[in-house]
């Protein structure tokens, strides 16, 4: 089962990457990143089935970090939205140059 789980984890991760590359809405890109994190969690758990509890503990950390990141990221999105009236990534190019 572990190898199957790893396979699924890989597929989910790649789908997440594809999602990041194809979408333009900032929030949806964020959600694809969450999908990638989930895929990684799955692979951690799969390995923890083989190698002990460290994998599961790590998943706890990943989740808490993901939560923190989601909070802060969405706060950023909100403040950007207030400024640009849109979350389309094409309009947010202050990093240019």
């Amino acid at each position: 089962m572990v190898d199957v789980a790893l396979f699924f984890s890989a597929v989910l991760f790649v789908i997440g990457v594809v999602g990041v590359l194809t979408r333009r809405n900032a929030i949806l890109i964020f959600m694809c990143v969450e999908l990638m994190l989930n895929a990684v969690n799955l692979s951690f758990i799969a390995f923890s089935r083989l190698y002990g509890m460290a994998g599961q503990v790590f998943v706890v950390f990943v989740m808490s970090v993901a939560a923190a990141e989601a909070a802060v990221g969405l706060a950023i999105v909100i403040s950007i939205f207030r400024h640009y009236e849109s979350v389309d990534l094409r309009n947010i190019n202050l990093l240019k140059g």
Partner: protein
Amino acid sequence: MPLPLLLAAATPPLAGTAADWLWLLPVLPLAGFALNGLLSLAGAFHPGPADPSADGHGAADAHAGGEAHADEHHAPARHRFAGATSVIGPAVLIAAFGLAVAIWMAMRDAGEMSAPLVQTYFSWIPVGALHVDFAFQLDQLAMVMVLVVTGVGALIHVFSVGYMRDDPGYPRYFAYLNLFVAFMLVLVLGASYPVMFIGWEGVGLCSYLLIGFWFTDKANADAGKKAFIVNRIGDFGFLVAMFLLWANLHALDFVGVAAGAKGLAFGGALVTAICLFFFLGCTGKSAQIPLYVWLPDAMAGPTPVSALIHAATMVTAGVYLIARSGFLFAMAPVAGLTVAVTGAVTALFAATIGLAQWDIKKVLAYSTVSQLGFMFIAAGVGAYATGIFHLVTHAFFKGLLFLGSGSVIYAMHAAYHHTGKHDDAQDMRNMGGLRTALPWTFVLMWIATLAIAGVPLFAGFFSKDEILAKVLERTTDSTLASATWLGLPGEFVLRAVFILALAAALLTAVYMTRLMLFTFHGPNRTGEAERAQLHEAPWIMTGPLVVLGILSAFGGWLNVPDPLGALGPVHVLSHWLEPVTGAATAMVGAEHEALPATEWAMMGGAVLVALAGIAIAFWRFKPAALVPKALAKPATGFTNVLEHKYYVDEIYDRAIVEPIVDGSRDILWTGIDKGLIDGLFVNGSAFLARALGWVGSKLQTGQLGEYAWALALGVLAVLGALTLR
């Protein structure tokens, strides 16, 4: 003394004598150089009359001194410190000559020296196994050279006081001349090849400085450059020979090389190569074929310079080198034959060119090349002492000839200066009939001409006759006769050398008599107004001429041959030089007693050749038929070829110089320097940096989506690298 005993330590008998002051010999002229140089520079800060070195836009003429401006209404411009220089310049030379005489007397009193006196002053190059000390070696050969250099040098310095009197570069001239003598003394006193090379290079440098003394005229500067560059080619040969010596013998001092040379294979490739490379250096310094081309151009310098450097001393350095390296050349018969053949061919070649030259100094220049050829003939056949003998007598009569021509040119210049004409003061076609105006110069120059032609009993007769005799002697029972040179048997080569030398001797008499005829005999072509202004030079210039005249007349007594033993002690010079050159000469061929009849026949033949040459000249050259240079018609036919010196300079230009210049410009400069280094490396790297920057800037769009793409592609690439590994 046999060679092995020369390897003993420095001889105590000379300690505590004047020889202790050996180091002072070059230091005196060096001090003169420093003082005169300071005076020259000091004069530059108080700008007076325009010295070309002071402010770069002097108006000095290309030809002889005495005149600083082309404008005849200006008074000639003496340098501010000329008075001090007139004292310092010659004084150091006279002091050096005095010291040389003292040392010579000490040597004479010490009797037979078992080994040369070697004084080491400081360690110069201590690098690993190579240990070269700055040391001087005093032996009989060095003594002779020192006496010639300081003696003739002192006379020429005194002459220069008068000749260069009104030149704005007066102290600079004496500074360079003193420096030259200093370097020349280092050359002849050096105890090892590297120290000799210091002097060798130094005299080349001073030659360049003095040839281009009036450098504001580009032709003079070019002549100086030509001399230096052609010399450099020869110096390459000298260096390679030194490298070969070091690599194989691990010694560079004369004592050590002499010892090591005996271990080399006789006539082997190594010793022949070493000798031939040394000879390449000699062809450069002593103006033999193929590197003689700088000497005629060197006549652009002041005439006393031509007398000292290009007649008496510097150009004889090559002969001295071979005499010094006798122990090497005696081991390589092929090299000896090469030297002799080159000397003979050069002697004849230059003599033919001298026949058609109109410039009085050019005739003398080619004469020098020719006479140097004679010296090399002697050196090539192993008669080193004879070569040195001819060197000494040549210094006397060639120095006299040059100084005499300087006297003539001085008079011509003074005359032109008076009337404001701008003709060529050195062209014989503008001279003629000067015997009445310059009687002393006339007589003295005839003495020198008779000497150089080989008329008995003047100096040249003894030395030239001895050279011819030695060549004939070597055709039997010598290492040279048994060797083969380029497939020809040595005996045949030596006979050919003899015939060439004889022909050259004949032509020598011809062209020298021609010079005298056109300059001093016949009607005067200088011009009506100038004729009255021609007069003898002041005594400060004529005095040294007289001394040299006496030496040219009686110098032959230095080495009287056996049949003329009634005249005085025989072979004085040869015996004096025997400890240095005797063994090497003996290795080449034993001295055998020739039948008195043969000897008298030889001498008679030589005299006949000399007198025949003079007669031919009187018969063929009619001074009355000449016209002044301005009106002269260009020459035709073979005479034209001779006048253009067989177009050798043009050939060298086309064959060697132009390809190098064009190749350098087109390949090295345009291709490599501009194209590759500037274009590809410098500009190319700048372009690359800008291109990379441009690419980088294009990536910074600020579009997060594109950044995500970049991230994904990067991950793809890294994973790809991992998978492929």
